[in-house]
Protein backbone atom coordinates (compact mmCIF):
# COMPACT_ATOMS: atom_id res chain seq x y z
CA UNK A 1 0.00 0.00 0.00
CA UNK A 2 2.80 2.35 0.94
CA UNK A 3 4.52 1.44 -2.27
CA UNK A 4 1.48 2.48 -4.24
CA UNK A 5 1.31 5.77 -2.38
CA UNK A 6 4.98 6.43 -3.03
CA UNK A 7 4.46 5.60 -6.64
CA UNK A 8 1.54 7.99 -6.99
CA UNK A 9 3.50 10.69 -5.23
CA UNK A 10 6.44 10.23 -7.55
CA UNK A 11 4.17 10.15 -10.58
CA UNK A 12 2.41 13.33 -9.52
CA UNK A 13 5.72 15.12 -9.11
CA UNK A 14 6.38 14.80 -12.85
CA UNK A 15 4.82 17.83 -14.58
CA UNK A 16 3.82 16.14 -17.83
CA UNK A 17 2.12 13.42 -15.83
CA UNK A 18 0.05 16.00 -13.95
CA UNK A 19 -1.03 17.75 -17.14
CA UNK A 20 -1.80 14.43 -18.79
CA UNK A 21 -3.91 13.17 -15.88
CA UNK A 22 -5.90 16.38 -15.68
CA UNK A 23 -6.57 16.31 -19.42
CA UNK A 24 -7.58 12.67 -19.23
CA UNK A 25 -9.90 13.27 -16.29
CA UNK A 26 -11.66 16.05 -18.21
CA UNK A 27 -11.95 13.80 -21.22
CA UNK A 28 -13.44 10.91 -19.30
CA UNK A 29 -15.93 13.23 -17.65
CA UNK A 30 -16.84 14.57 -21.07
CA UNK A 31 -17.43 11.07 -22.42
CA UNK A 32 -19.49 9.97 -19.42
CA UNK A 33 -21.62 13.10 -19.17
CA UNK A 34 -21.95 13.63 -22.91
CA UNK A 35 -25.78 13.69 -22.81
CA UNK A 36 -25.70 16.36 -20.09
CA UNK A 37 -22.91 18.44 -21.58
CA UNK A 38 -23.92 18.44 -25.22
CA UNK A 39 -26.20 21.41 -25.97
CA UNK A 40 -27.95 19.54 -28.80
CA UNK A 41 -28.67 16.12 -30.18
CA UNK A 42 -25.50 15.33 -32.15
CA UNK A 43 -27.44 13.48 -34.84
CA UNK A 44 -30.13 16.10 -35.39
CA UNK A 45 -29.91 18.08 -38.61
CA UNK A 46 -30.64 21.73 -37.90
CA UNK A 47 -31.75 24.20 -40.53
CA UNK A 48 -28.77 26.39 -39.80
CA UNK A 49 -26.11 24.82 -41.96
CA UNK A 50 -22.49 25.99 -41.87
CA UNK A 51 -23.41 28.45 -39.16
CA UNK A 52 -20.45 30.19 -37.55
CA UNK A 53 -19.98 29.73 -33.78
CA UNK A 54 -22.69 31.62 -31.90
CA UNK A 55 -24.60 31.41 -28.63
CA UNK A 56 -26.87 28.69 -29.94
CA UNK A 57 -24.08 26.63 -31.52
CA UNK A 58 -20.91 27.45 -29.59
CA UNK A 59 -18.67 25.76 -32.15
CA UNK A 60 -20.94 26.33 -35.15
CA UNK A 61 -22.66 23.79 -37.36
CA UNK A 62 -21.36 21.61 -40.16
CA UNK A 63 -22.39 21.21 -43.80
CA UNK A 64 -25.55 19.26 -43.03
CA UNK A 65 -26.53 21.18 -39.90
CA UNK A 66 -25.03 19.09 -37.07
CA UNK A 67 -24.06 20.96 -33.94
CA UNK A 68 -20.25 20.66 -34.00
CA UNK A 69 -19.81 20.98 -30.24
CA UNK A 70 -22.29 18.19 -29.53
CA UNK A 71 -20.63 16.02 -32.13
CA UNK A 72 -17.21 16.61 -30.62
CA UNK A 73 -18.51 15.78 -27.14
CA UNK A 74 -20.04 12.51 -28.32
CA UNK A 75 -17.00 11.81 -30.47
CA UNK A 76 -14.90 11.51 -27.31
CA UNK A 77 -16.73 8.25 -26.60
CA UNK A 78 -15.65 6.80 -29.92
CA UNK A 79 -12.03 7.84 -29.57
CA UNK A 80 -11.71 6.62 -26.00
CA UNK A 81 -13.41 3.30 -26.72
CA UNK A 82 -11.34 2.57 -29.79
CA UNK A 83 -8.13 3.69 -28.15
CA UNK A 84 -8.58 1.70 -24.97
CA UNK A 85 -9.90 -1.50 -26.54
CA UNK A 86 -7.39 -1.59 -29.39
CA UNK A 87 -4.51 -0.93 -26.99
CA UNK A 88 -5.81 -3.59 -24.60
CA UNK A 89 -5.94 -6.17 -27.37
CA UNK A 90 -2.38 -5.33 -28.28
CA UNK A 91 -1.34 -5.48 -24.62
CA UNK A 92 -2.82 -8.96 -24.13
CA UNK A 93 -1.25 -10.37 -27.30
CA UNK A 94 2.05 -8.64 -26.70
CA UNK A 95 2.31 -9.72 -23.07
CA UNK A 96 1.52 -13.31 -23.89
CA UNK A 97 3.84 -13.62 -26.87
CA UNK A 98 6.66 -11.71 -25.18
CA UNK A 99 6.25 -13.56 -21.89
CA UNK A 100 6.27 -16.95 -23.53
CA UNK A 101 9.25 -16.07 -25.71
CA UNK A 102 11.32 -14.64 -22.88
CA UNK A 103 10.41 -17.17 -20.22
CA UNK A 104 10.51 -20.37 -22.23
CA UNK A 105 13.56 -19.29 -24.21
CA UNK A 106 15.33 -21.67 -26.56
CA UNK A 107 13.65 -22.53 -29.82
CA UNK A 108 10.31 -21.03 -28.81
CA UNK A 109 12.06 -17.73 -28.26
CA UNK A 110 13.92 -17.91 -31.54
CA UNK A 111 10.78 -18.50 -33.53
CA UNK A 112 8.67 -15.92 -31.70
CA UNK A 113 11.47 -13.38 -31.88
CA UNK A 114 11.63 -13.79 -35.62
CA UNK A 115 7.86 -13.39 -35.83
CA UNK A 116 8.24 -10.16 -33.85
CA UNK A 117 10.96 -8.94 -36.19
CA UNK A 118 8.74 -9.60 -39.16
CA UNK A 119 5.73 -7.89 -37.62
CA UNK A 120 7.90 -4.96 -36.68
CA UNK A 121 8.82 -4.44 -40.31
CA UNK A 122 5.32 -4.74 -41.69
CA UNK A 123 3.92 -1.32 -42.53
CA UNK A 124 1.04 -1.61 -40.12
CA UNK A 125 -1.03 1.43 -40.97
CA UNK A 126 -1.23 0.34 -44.56
CA UNK A 127 -2.14 -3.16 -43.57
CA UNK A 128 -4.91 -1.79 -41.36
CA UNK A 129 -6.08 0.33 -44.23
CA UNK A 130 -6.14 -2.57 -46.65
CA UNK A 131 -8.04 -4.81 -44.28
CA UNK A 132 -10.59 -2.15 -43.41
CA UNK A 133 -11.03 -1.31 -47.08
CA UNK A 134 -11.79 -4.92 -47.91
CA UNK A 135 -13.61 -6.13 -44.83
CA UNK A 136 -15.58 -3.06 -43.98
CA UNK A 137 -15.05 -0.23 -41.58
CA UNK A 138 -17.20 -1.09 -38.59
CA UNK A 139 -15.83 0.22 -35.30
CA UNK A 140 -15.31 -3.34 -34.10
CA UNK A 141 -13.21 -4.20 -37.15
CA UNK A 142 -11.12 -1.10 -36.72
CA UNK A 143 -10.43 -1.83 -33.04
CA UNK A 144 -9.51 -5.44 -33.60
CA UNK A 145 -7.28 -4.76 -36.56
CA UNK A 146 -5.40 -1.96 -34.82
CA UNK A 147 -4.93 -4.23 -31.82
CA UNK A 148 -3.73 -7.13 -33.94
CA UNK A 149 -1.10 -5.06 -35.69
CA UNK A 150 0.38 -3.07 -32.81
CA UNK A 151 1.43 -5.67 -30.26
CA UNK A 152 5.10 -6.04 -31.16
CA UNK A 153 6.32 -3.21 -28.94
CA UNK A 154 4.62 -4.80 -25.94
CA UNK A 155 5.96 -8.22 -26.81
CA UNK A 156 9.52 -6.96 -26.96
CA UNK A 157 9.19 -5.21 -23.61
CA UNK A 158 7.65 -8.26 -21.96
CA UNK A 159 10.27 -10.53 -23.44
CA UNK A 160 13.06 -8.45 -21.96
CA UNK A 161 11.27 -8.41 -18.61
CA UNK A 162 10.76 -12.16 -18.64
CA UNK A 163 14.39 -12.81 -19.50
CA UNK A 164 15.61 -10.72 -16.59
CA UNK A 165 12.95 -11.94 -14.17
CA UNK A 166 13.58 -15.61 -14.71
CA UNK A 167 17.07 -15.22 -13.26
CA UNK A 168 15.66 -13.96 -9.99
CA UNK A 169 15.61 -16.13 -6.92
CA UNK A 170 11.87 -16.14 -6.36
CA UNK A 171 11.25 -17.50 -9.84
CA UNK A 172 13.95 -20.10 -9.43
CA UNK A 173 12.58 -21.21 -6.11
CA UNK A 174 9.09 -21.47 -7.60
CA UNK A 175 10.59 -23.63 -10.30
CA UNK A 176 12.42 -25.75 -7.76
CA UNK A 177 9.20 -26.24 -5.83
CA UNK A 178 7.70 -27.81 -8.92
CA UNK A 179 5.30 -25.11 -9.98
CA UNK A 180 4.38 -25.56 -13.62
CA UNK A 181 5.95 -23.31 -16.22
CA UNK A 182 2.72 -21.75 -17.38
CA UNK A 183 1.64 -21.10 -13.83
CA UNK A 184 4.94 -19.33 -13.11
CA UNK A 185 4.54 -17.31 -16.26
CA UNK A 186 1.05 -16.09 -15.37
CA UNK A 187 1.43 -15.85 -11.62
CA UNK A 188 4.93 -14.41 -11.27
CA UNK A 189 6.58 -13.32 -14.48
CA UNK A 190 3.77 -11.34 -16.05
CA UNK A 191 2.51 -9.59 -12.89
CA UNK A 192 6.05 -8.60 -11.96
CA UNK A 193 7.02 -7.43 -15.40
CA UNK A 194 3.81 -5.70 -16.41
CA UNK A 195 4.73 -2.13 -15.60
CA UNK A 196 6.53 -1.20 -18.83
CA UNK A 197 3.61 -2.73 -20.70
CA UNK A 198 1.23 -0.40 -18.91
CA UNK A 199 3.35 2.61 -19.85
CA UNK A 200 3.57 1.44 -23.43
CA UNK A 201 -0.14 0.65 -23.62
CA UNK A 202 -0.90 4.22 -22.64
CA UNK A 203 1.22 5.33 -25.57
CA UNK A 204 -0.53 2.78 -27.79
CA UNK A 205 -3.88 4.35 -26.93
CA UNK A 206 -2.57 7.56 -28.51
CA UNK A 207 -1.48 5.61 -31.55
CA UNK A 208 -4.83 3.85 -31.90
CA UNK A 209 -6.76 7.11 -31.64
CA UNK A 210 -4.56 8.66 -34.32
CA UNK A 211 -5.00 5.60 -36.54
CA UNK A 212 -8.74 5.72 -36.19
CA UNK A 213 -8.82 9.42 -36.97
CA UNK A 214 -6.65 8.79 -40.02
CA UNK A 215 -8.92 6.03 -41.28
CA UNK A 216 -12.00 8.17 -40.74
CA UNK A 217 -10.31 11.02 -42.58
CA UNK A 218 -9.80 8.97 -45.73
CA UNK A 219 -13.35 7.77 -45.60
CA UNK A 220 -12.77 4.45 -43.86
CA UNK A 221 -14.52 5.32 -40.62
CA UNK A 222 -17.61 3.61 -39.28
CA UNK A 223 -20.44 5.59 -40.88
CA UNK A 224 -22.78 4.73 -38.01
CA UNK A 225 -20.87 6.51 -35.30
CA UNK A 226 -19.61 9.99 -34.60
CA UNK A 227 -15.86 10.24 -34.82
CA UNK A 228 -13.53 13.20 -34.73
CA UNK A 229 -11.70 12.07 -37.85
CA UNK A 230 -14.97 12.08 -39.75
CA UNK A 231 -15.84 15.56 -38.55
CA UNK A 232 -12.45 16.80 -39.77
CA UNK A 233 -13.02 15.07 -43.08
CA UNK A 234 -16.53 16.47 -43.39
CA UNK A 235 -15.32 19.99 -42.66
CA UNK A 236 -12.41 19.79 -45.08
CA UNK A 237 -14.37 20.83 -48.11
CA UNK A 238 -15.69 23.94 -46.41
CA UNK A 239 -12.26 25.32 -45.68
CA UNK A 240 -11.21 28.07 -45.43
CA UNK A 241 -14.52 29.85 -44.94
CA UNK A 242 -16.09 27.50 -42.44
CA UNK A 243 -12.91 26.84 -40.48
CA UNK A 244 -14.63 25.88 -37.22
CA UNK A 245 -15.71 22.39 -38.21
CA UNK A 246 -12.22 21.11 -38.94
CA UNK A 247 -10.29 23.22 -36.44
CA UNK A 248 -12.18 22.30 -33.27
CA UNK A 249 -12.54 18.62 -34.01
CA UNK A 250 -8.84 18.44 -34.80
CA UNK A 251 -7.98 20.12 -31.52
CA UNK A 252 -10.05 17.48 -29.73
CA UNK A 253 -7.88 14.78 -31.32
CA UNK A 254 -4.68 16.62 -30.45
CA UNK A 255 -5.55 17.08 -26.79
CA UNK A 256 -6.77 13.52 -26.34
CA UNK A 257 -3.70 12.03 -27.93
CA UNK A 258 -1.56 14.44 -25.94
CA UNK A 259 -3.15 13.32 -22.67
CA UNK A 260 -2.28 9.66 -23.16
CA UNK A 261 1.06 10.53 -24.59
CA UNK A 262 2.02 12.64 -21.59
CA UNK A 263 0.86 9.98 -19.15
CA UNK A 264 2.73 7.26 -21.01
CA UNK A 265 5.87 9.34 -21.06
CA UNK A 266 5.46 10.16 -17.38
CA UNK A 267 5.03 6.49 -16.50
CA UNK A 268 8.21 5.65 -18.37
CA UNK A 269 9.98 8.35 -16.40
CA UNK A 270 8.73 6.97 -13.10
CA UNK A 271 9.90 3.58 -14.22
CA UNK A 272 13.43 4.68 -15.08
CA UNK A 273 14.38 7.41 -12.63
CA UNK A 274 17.21 9.38 -14.15
CA UNK A 275 20.50 8.63 -12.52
CA UNK A 276 21.88 12.09 -12.15
CA UNK A 277 24.03 11.10 -9.24
CA UNK A 278 25.24 7.60 -9.14
CA UNK A 279 27.27 7.65 -6.00
Amino acid at each position, binding site marked *: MKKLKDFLKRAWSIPQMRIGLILLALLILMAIFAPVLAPHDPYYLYDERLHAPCAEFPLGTDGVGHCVLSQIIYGSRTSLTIGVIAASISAVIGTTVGGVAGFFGGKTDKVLNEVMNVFLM*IPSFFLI*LLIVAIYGSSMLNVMIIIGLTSWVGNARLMRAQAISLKQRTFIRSAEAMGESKSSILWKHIIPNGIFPIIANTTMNISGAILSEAGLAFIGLGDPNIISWGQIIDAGKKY*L*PKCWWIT*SFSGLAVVFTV*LAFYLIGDGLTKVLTPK*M*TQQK
Partner: protein
Amino acid sequence: MKQYIWKRVLTGALVVLFSVLFNFVLMRLAPGDPTRLLAGKENPNPATILALQERYGLNKPIMVQFVLYIKQLLHGDFGFSYVSNRPVLTIIGERFGATILLAVVGLIIEITVGILLGVHAAQHQGSKFDTILNGISYFFDSTPAFWLGLMIILLFSSTLHLLPTSGMYNVRENYQGFRRVLDVGYHMILPTLTMVVLNIPYYFRITRSSVMETMNEDYIMTLRSTGMPEKQIFRKYVLRNALLPIITVVGITMAYMITGVAFIEIVFAWPGMGRLMLNSITTRDYPVLSGIYLLLSISVAVMMIVVDVVYAYADPRIRYED
Protein backbone atom coordinates in the same frame (compact mmCIF):
# COMPACT_ATOMS: atom_id res chain seq x y z
CA MET B 1 29.37 -9.73 -39.46
CA LYS B 2 28.49 -11.73 -42.54
CA GLN B 3 26.23 -13.87 -40.49
CA TYR B 4 24.60 -10.78 -39.06
CA ILE B 5 23.81 -9.41 -42.49
CA TRP B 6 22.48 -12.75 -43.68
CA LYS B 7 20.22 -12.89 -40.70
CA ARG B 8 18.81 -9.50 -41.54
CA VAL B 9 18.35 -10.47 -45.18
CA LEU B 10 16.49 -13.55 -44.05
CA THR B 11 14.18 -11.49 -41.87
CA GLY B 12 13.62 -9.12 -44.77
CA ALA B 13 12.75 -12.00 -47.06
CA LEU B 14 10.35 -13.32 -44.46
CA VAL B 15 8.69 -9.92 -44.24
CA VAL B 16 8.12 -9.85 -47.97
CA LEU B 17 6.84 -13.40 -47.94
CA PHE B 18 4.45 -12.62 -45.12
CA SER B 19 3.21 -9.54 -46.92
CA VAL B 20 2.58 -11.55 -50.05
CA LEU B 21 0.77 -14.15 -48.00
CA PHE B 22 -1.31 -11.53 -46.19
CA ASN B 23 -2.22 -10.00 -49.46
CA PHE B 24 -3.21 -13.28 -50.96
CA VAL B 25 -5.23 -14.40 -47.99
CA LEU B 26 -6.93 -11.03 -47.64
CA MET B 27 -8.06 -10.98 -51.22
CA ARG B 28 -9.13 -14.61 -51.39
CA LEU B 29 -10.80 -14.91 -48.03
CA ALA B 30 -12.65 -11.66 -48.34
CA PRO B 31 -16.39 -11.91 -47.78
CA GLY B 32 -18.14 -12.88 -50.96
CA ASP B 33 -16.69 -14.13 -54.17
CA PRO B 34 -13.07 -13.11 -54.90
CA THR B 35 -14.06 -12.48 -58.48
CA ARG B 36 -16.30 -9.75 -57.19
CA LEU B 37 -13.34 -8.20 -55.39
CA LEU B 38 -11.00 -8.60 -58.30
CA ALA B 39 -13.51 -7.26 -60.77
CA GLY B 40 -14.59 -4.52 -58.43
CA LYS B 41 -18.23 -4.93 -59.27
CA GLU B 42 -21.12 -6.44 -57.40
CA ASN B 43 -22.32 -8.38 -60.42
CA PRO B 44 -19.57 -8.80 -62.98
CA ASN B 45 -20.71 -10.19 -66.30
CA PRO B 46 -20.01 -13.86 -66.97
CA ALA B 47 -17.29 -13.10 -69.48
CA THR B 48 -15.33 -11.10 -66.88
CA ILE B 49 -15.77 -13.86 -64.35
CA LEU B 50 -14.44 -16.42 -66.76
CA ALA B 51 -11.52 -14.23 -67.71
CA LEU B 52 -10.63 -13.67 -64.06
CA GLN B 53 -10.95 -17.32 -63.19
CA GLU B 54 -8.68 -18.15 -66.04
CA ARG B 55 -6.21 -15.46 -65.14
CA TYR B 56 -5.93 -16.14 -61.41
CA GLY B 57 -6.73 -19.84 -61.56
CA LEU B 58 -9.62 -19.25 -59.18
CA ASN B 59 -11.14 -22.65 -59.86
CA LYS B 60 -7.90 -24.42 -58.91
CA PRO B 61 -6.96 -25.47 -55.35
CA ILE B 62 -5.92 -22.64 -53.05
CA MET B 63 -2.27 -23.74 -52.87
CA VAL B 64 -1.97 -23.77 -56.63
CA GLN B 65 -3.49 -20.33 -56.68
CA PHE B 66 -0.87 -19.11 -54.24
CA VAL B 67 1.99 -20.47 -56.31
CA LEU B 68 0.45 -18.92 -59.38
CA TYR B 69 0.16 -15.63 -57.56
CA ILE B 70 3.82 -15.64 -56.56
CA LYS B 71 4.82 -16.52 -60.09
CA GLN B 72 2.92 -13.55 -61.40
CA LEU B 73 4.50 -11.27 -58.84
CA LEU B 74 7.95 -12.49 -59.76
CA HIS B 75 7.22 -11.56 -63.34
CA GLY B 76 6.35 -8.07 -62.22
CA ASP B 77 2.68 -8.71 -62.75
CA PHE B 78 0.87 -7.02 -59.89
CA GLY B 79 -2.52 -7.26 -61.55
CA PHE B 80 -4.63 -4.69 -63.34
CA SER B 81 -6.55 -1.75 -62.10
CA TYR B 82 -10.14 -2.38 -62.95
CA VAL B 83 -10.82 1.33 -63.08
CA SER B 84 -8.38 2.06 -65.88
CA ASN B 85 -7.55 -1.54 -66.73
CA ARG B 86 -3.86 -0.66 -66.81
CA PRO B 87 -1.12 -2.65 -65.05
CA VAL B 88 -0.89 -1.77 -61.36
CA LEU B 89 2.87 -1.47 -61.51
CA THR B 90 2.66 1.13 -64.30
CA ILE B 91 0.14 3.19 -62.37
CA ILE B 92 2.25 3.11 -59.22
CA GLY B 93 5.38 3.89 -61.22
CA GLU B 94 3.83 7.11 -62.48
CA ARG B 95 3.20 8.28 -58.95
CA PHE B 96 6.42 7.10 -57.41
CA GLY B 97 8.58 10.06 -58.40
CA ALA B 98 6.34 12.69 -56.86
CA THR B 99 6.22 10.83 -53.56
CA ILE B 100 9.95 10.28 -53.41
CA LEU B 101 10.64 13.92 -54.25
CA LEU B 102 8.47 15.17 -51.42
CA ALA B 103 9.65 12.52 -48.97
CA VAL B 104 13.36 12.94 -49.60
CA VAL B 105 13.36 16.73 -49.47
CA GLY B 106 11.33 16.68 -46.27
CA LEU B 107 13.50 13.99 -44.75
CA ILE B 108 16.73 15.86 -45.40
CA ILE B 109 15.38 19.02 -43.82
CA GLU B 110 13.77 17.38 -40.79
CA ILE B 111 16.76 15.20 -39.98
CA THR B 112 19.22 18.06 -40.21
CA VAL B 113 17.15 20.51 -38.23
CA GLY B 114 15.98 17.90 -35.70
CA ILE B 115 19.47 16.70 -34.92
CA LEU B 116 20.90 20.21 -34.69
CA LEU B 117 18.14 21.30 -32.31
CA GLY B 118 18.50 18.12 -30.27
CA VAL B 119 22.24 18.50 -29.85
CA HIS B 120 21.83 22.14 -28.89
CA ALA B 121 19.10 21.37 -26.37
CA ALA B 122 21.12 18.56 -24.80
CA GLN B 123 24.04 20.90 -24.31
CA HIS B 124 21.77 23.40 -22.62
CA GLN B 125 19.56 21.14 -20.56
CA GLY B 126 16.91 22.94 -18.62
CA SER B 127 17.43 26.19 -20.50
CA LYS B 128 14.46 28.12 -21.84
CA PHE B 129 15.25 26.91 -25.34
CA ASP B 130 15.21 23.33 -24.13
CA THR B 131 11.97 23.63 -22.16
CA ILE B 132 10.06 25.38 -24.93
CA LEU B 133 11.19 22.99 -27.63
CA ASN B 134 10.28 20.07 -25.43
CA GLY B 135 6.78 21.39 -24.91
CA ILE B 136 6.31 22.03 -28.62
CA SER B 137 7.56 18.58 -29.47
CA TYR B 138 4.89 16.94 -27.30
CA PHE B 139 2.23 18.98 -29.03
CA PHE B 140 3.26 18.12 -32.57
CA ASP B 141 3.73 14.49 -31.67
CA SER B 142 0.04 14.41 -30.86
CA THR B 143 -1.06 16.16 -34.02
CA PRO B 144 -2.42 14.15 -36.95
CA ALA B 145 -0.59 15.04 -40.17
CA PHE B 146 -3.77 15.62 -42.14
CA TRP B 147 -5.13 18.07 -39.61
CA LEU B 148 -1.92 20.05 -39.37
CA GLY B 149 -1.86 20.19 -43.18
CA LEU B 150 -5.39 21.58 -43.23
CA MET B 151 -4.53 24.13 -40.57
CA ILE B 152 -1.45 25.23 -42.46
CA ILE B 153 -3.54 25.64 -45.60
CA LEU B 154 -6.04 27.63 -43.58
CA LEU B 155 -3.34 29.88 -42.22
CA PHE B 156 -0.98 30.36 -45.14
CA SER B 157 -2.91 30.33 -48.32
CA SER B 158 -6.49 30.96 -47.49
CA THR B 159 -5.90 33.67 -44.94
CA LEU B 160 -2.59 35.11 -46.06
CA HIS B 161 -3.03 34.23 -49.77
CA LEU B 162 0.61 33.46 -50.09
CA LEU B 163 1.32 29.98 -51.34
CA PRO B 164 -0.31 27.33 -53.50
CA THR B 165 -2.24 24.77 -51.46
CA SER B 166 -2.70 21.97 -53.91
CA GLY B 167 -1.07 20.13 -56.73
CA MET B 168 2.51 19.85 -57.82
CA TYR B 169 2.65 22.53 -60.49
CA ASN B 170 0.61 25.25 -62.06
CA VAL B 171 -1.66 23.37 -64.43
CA ARG B 172 -2.82 26.43 -66.32
CA GLU B 173 0.62 27.79 -67.13
CA ASN B 174 2.29 24.38 -67.44
CA TYR B 175 5.80 25.84 -67.34
CA GLN B 176 8.65 23.95 -68.90
CA GLY B 177 12.35 23.68 -68.16
CA PHE B 178 13.84 25.58 -65.28
CA ARG B 179 10.63 27.48 -64.62
CA ARG B 180 8.95 24.13 -64.12
CA VAL B 181 11.49 23.25 -61.44
CA LEU B 182 10.84 26.56 -59.69
CA ASP B 183 7.11 26.01 -59.97
CA VAL B 184 7.31 22.55 -58.41
CA GLY B 185 9.53 23.94 -55.65
CA TYR B 186 6.97 26.65 -55.01
CA HIS B 187 4.17 24.09 -54.75
CA MET B 188 6.28 21.98 -52.43
CA ILE B 189 6.71 24.59 -49.75
CA LEU B 190 3.55 23.94 -47.76
CA PRO B 191 3.53 20.14 -47.92
CA THR B 192 7.18 20.07 -46.97
CA LEU B 193 6.59 22.52 -44.15
CA THR B 194 3.82 20.32 -42.75
CA MET B 195 5.95 17.23 -42.91
CA VAL B 196 8.98 18.90 -41.42
CA VAL B 197 7.11 20.52 -38.55
CA LEU B 198 5.54 17.17 -37.67
CA ASN B 199 8.72 15.15 -37.75
CA ILE B 200 11.35 17.49 -36.37
CA PRO B 201 10.16 16.91 -32.78
CA TYR B 202 10.79 13.23 -33.21
CA TYR B 203 14.42 13.65 -34.26
CA PHE B 204 14.83 16.43 -31.77
CA ARG B 205 13.79 14.30 -28.83
CA ILE B 206 15.73 11.23 -29.82
CA THR B 207 18.89 13.21 -30.44
CA ARG B 208 18.50 15.14 -27.22
CA SER B 209 18.09 12.08 -25.03
CA SER B 210 20.83 10.18 -26.80
CA VAL B 211 23.31 13.02 -26.37
CA MET B 212 22.31 13.50 -22.73
CA GLU B 213 22.72 9.82 -22.03
CA THR B 214 26.12 9.75 -23.67
CA MET B 215 27.32 12.77 -21.71
CA ASN B 216 26.71 10.82 -18.52
CA GLU B 217 28.71 7.81 -19.64
CA ASP B 218 31.76 6.77 -17.67
CA TYR B 219 34.11 7.14 -20.60
CA ILE B 220 33.15 10.77 -20.98
CA MET B 221 33.97 11.20 -17.29
CA THR B 222 37.36 9.58 -17.91
CA LEU B 223 38.07 11.92 -20.79
CA ARG B 224 37.05 14.90 -18.70
CA SER B 225 39.38 13.86 -15.91
CA THR B 226 42.29 13.73 -18.37
CA GLY B 227 41.96 17.45 -18.94
CA MET B 228 40.68 17.13 -22.49
CA PRO B 229 38.81 20.33 -23.42
CA GLU B 230 35.02 19.96 -23.35
CA LYS B 231 34.75 20.98 -26.97
CA GLN B 232 37.01 18.19 -28.12
CA ILE B 233 35.23 15.65 -25.92
CA PHE B 234 31.90 16.71 -27.33
CA ARG B 235 32.83 16.84 -30.99
CA LYS B 236 34.86 13.72 -31.14
CA TYR B 237 33.48 11.41 -28.49
CA VAL B 238 29.99 12.46 -27.43
CA LEU B 239 28.66 13.08 -30.92
CA ARG B 240 30.06 9.92 -32.44
CA ASN B 241 28.57 7.78 -29.69
CA ALA B 242 25.30 9.66 -29.44
CA LEU B 243 24.53 9.79 -33.15
CA LEU B 244 25.05 6.07 -33.66
CA PRO B 245 21.60 5.00 -32.47
CA ILE B 246 20.11 7.79 -34.56
CA ILE B 247 21.23 6.00 -37.72
CA THR B 248 18.68 3.32 -36.95
CA VAL B 249 15.95 5.83 -36.31
CA VAL B 250 16.67 7.70 -39.52
CA GLY B 251 16.67 4.42 -41.38
CA ILE B 252 13.31 3.39 -40.00
CA THR B 253 11.70 6.67 -41.00
CA MET B 254 13.28 6.39 -44.42
CA ALA B 255 11.81 2.95 -44.77
CA TYR B 256 8.37 4.28 -43.97
CA MET B 257 8.73 7.56 -45.85
CA ILE B 258 6.12 6.58 -48.40
CA THR B 259 3.48 6.07 -45.72
CA GLY B 260 4.83 9.08 -43.86
CA VAL B 261 3.84 11.44 -46.65
CA ALA B 262 0.61 9.71 -47.68
CA PHE B 263 -1.66 11.94 -45.61
CA ILE B 264 0.21 15.05 -46.59
CA GLU B 265 -0.21 14.16 -50.24
CA ILE B 266 -3.91 13.70 -49.71
CA VAL B 267 -4.35 17.04 -48.03
CA PHE B 268 -2.26 18.97 -50.53
CA ALA B 269 -3.47 17.03 -53.58
CA TRP B 270 0.11 16.06 -54.33
CA PRO B 271 0.02 13.57 -57.20
CA GLY B 272 1.95 10.82 -55.41
CA MET B 273 1.18 7.35 -54.12
CA GLY B 274 -0.76 8.61 -51.13
CA ARG B 275 -3.14 10.37 -53.44
CA LEU B 276 -3.36 7.22 -55.55
CA MET B 277 -4.17 5.26 -52.42
CA LEU B 278 -7.04 7.59 -51.55
CA ASN B 279 -8.45 7.40 -55.05
CA SER B 280 -8.22 3.62 -55.02
CA ILE B 281 -10.06 3.50 -51.72
CA THR B 282 -12.82 5.70 -53.05
CA THR B 283 -13.18 3.62 -56.20
CA ARG B 284 -12.56 0.32 -54.34
CA ASP B 285 -9.70 -0.44 -56.72
CA TYR B 286 -8.34 -3.36 -54.70
CA PRO B 287 -5.66 -4.52 -57.13
CA VAL B 288 -4.02 -1.10 -56.91
CA LEU B 289 -4.33 -0.99 -53.12
CA SER B 290 -2.77 -4.38 -52.68
CA GLY B 291 -0.05 -3.46 -55.17
CA ILE B 292 0.82 -0.37 -53.14
CA TYR B 293 0.88 -2.44 -49.98
CA LEU B 294 3.20 -5.02 -51.49
CA LEU B 295 5.63 -2.49 -52.90
CA LEU B 296 5.63 -0.71 -49.58
CA SER B 297 6.45 -3.93 -47.72
CA ILE B 298 9.27 -4.70 -50.10
CA SER B 299 10.75 -1.23 -49.83
CA VAL B 300 10.50 -1.31 -46.04
CA ALA B 301 12.24 -4.67 -45.92
CA VAL B 302 15.00 -3.55 -48.23
CA MET B 303 15.53 -0.29 -46.36
CA MET B 304 15.69 -2.08 -43.04
CA ILE B 305 18.42 -4.36 -44.32
CA VAL B 306 20.35 -1.40 -45.68
CA VAL B 307 20.03 0.39 -42.34
CA ASP B 308 21.23 -2.62 -40.41
CA VAL B 309 24.24 -3.04 -42.65
CA VAL B 310 25.13 0.64 -42.40
CA TYR B 311 24.74 0.48 -38.65
CA ALA B 312 26.87 -2.61 -38.41
CA TYR B 313 29.66 -0.80 -40.23
CA ALA B 314 29.35 2.24 -38.03
CA ASP B 315 29.34 0.38 -34.73
CA PRO B 316 32.41 -1.77 -34.04
CA ARG B 317 30.48 -3.69 -31.41
CA ILE B 318 28.35 -5.27 -34.10
CA ARG B 319 31.02 -5.36 -36.76
CA TYR B 320 32.96 -7.99 -34.90
CA GLU B 321 30.06 -9.98 -33.61
CA ASP B 322 29.51 -13.38 -35.09
